[in-house]
């Protein structure tokens, strides 16, 4: 899910950087209270850790992304949260790259923000509805992220449909796992601290 350095052309990188910059400033403005900052920080490290741990699923496997969970809990603050984690991954492990930070941040954070607006209201309903919201949010966010990545790679890889299909089949099982995890986390938070979900 991390695009490496030297793959994308300058206009794509610039577009990603500008879009992400907008998202990050908006996200930072949305953080009003100090308690919210803690939430962003903790979820930042959740994202950081799960991207580095590889989970086997079927014949192949990949790491979790959990951008749906971040989006659902943070809204626009997903942008700064993911950005900080990606910076550290790029510096410490050369995952992705510093020039591709903008594109990677946008591709992962934007789906989270979109899911936030789609599923936020469903969380207030019954437990079963909230679980469904979390489940669908987890699946949709990751699949949207693969779509964004495919769009970013449109120039580099020859066939857009082929690339998005490979990415889709690769990430479909993971997205289901993410959906289940997001669903259960939402249920758990709903039980112990419903005010977090708004």
């Amino acid at each position: 899910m991390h695009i490496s350095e030297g793959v994308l052309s300058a206009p794509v990188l610039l577009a990603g950087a500008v879009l992400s910059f907008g998202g990050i400033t908006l996200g930072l403005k949305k953080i009003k209270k100090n308690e919210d900052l803690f939430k962003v920080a903790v979820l930042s490290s959740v994202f950081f850790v799960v991207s580095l741990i590889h989970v086997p699923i079927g014949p192949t496997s990949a790491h979790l992304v959990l951008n749906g969970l971040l989006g659902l809990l943070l809204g626009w603050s997903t942008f700064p949260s993911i950005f900080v984690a990606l910076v550290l991954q790029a510096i410490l492990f050369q995952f992705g790259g510093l020039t591709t930070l903008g594109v990677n941040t946008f591709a992962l954070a934007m789906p989270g923000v979109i899911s936030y607006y789609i599923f936020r209201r469903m969380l207030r309903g019954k437990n079963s509805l909230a679980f469904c919201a979390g489940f669908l949010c987890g699946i949709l966010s990751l699949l949207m992220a693969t779509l964004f990545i495919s769009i970013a790679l449109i120039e580099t890889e020859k066939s857009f449909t082929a690339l998005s299909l490979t990415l889709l089949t690769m990430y479909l099982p993971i997205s289901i796992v993410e959906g289940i995890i997001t669903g259960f986390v939402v249920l758990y938070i709903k039980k112990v601290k419903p005010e977090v979900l708004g």
Partner: protein
Amino acid sequence: MKNKKKLSFFQHKGFLNPSKSSNIGNILLSFLFFSLLQLVFFSSNPVYAHKVSTYAYREGDKIFGECYFVDGSPCKNSKVEIYNARGDKILETTTDEKGKYSFTITEKGTLRIVISAGEGHKAKYKLEGIGGETVKKETPLTQHHPSINKDEIKQIIEEAMDAKFSELKTEIINLHKQMDKVTLRDLIGGIGYIFGVWGIITLLKNKKNAS
């Protein structure tokens, strides 16, 4: 009901202040639970990963290399491109099932090896050039034994060295692989950094609010 009991236990112990620190404790708990679960069950499996690295070495005119993902699994059937010091592409090959590649090349200068693993992943390696004519100086050996020419000696030495160093070279590749692996220490360090970064942001925000 069970959860409420648990919560009051934490409050009693002073872990959670219900009025102020709200959500943090619970999110942290669930986060730790998931990450530990993953660490315990999944971290040791060799699987598809998202960073590719490569390493290559010379053996005379031949160049051997290996391309692998961050967890050590091979990067199969990927395009390998070789550029010279001026940036011109001089060769193209692919990696085999074990992620290995090799090619013969006469170029002695610095080579840049670029491997595209697809889906936006790329690995680069700079192979330093070797001096074209390092044995320029006439050695007394050739004068005493005119029957063996200089090139032959050079070749014999090179073959002997290659044989000796082949083990060392695989060892170096293994070391490279290990260096690229993400360890538990890296993860914990990374979490620390993130909290540090957000701590600084909190400080700045507080200062702004105060002024």
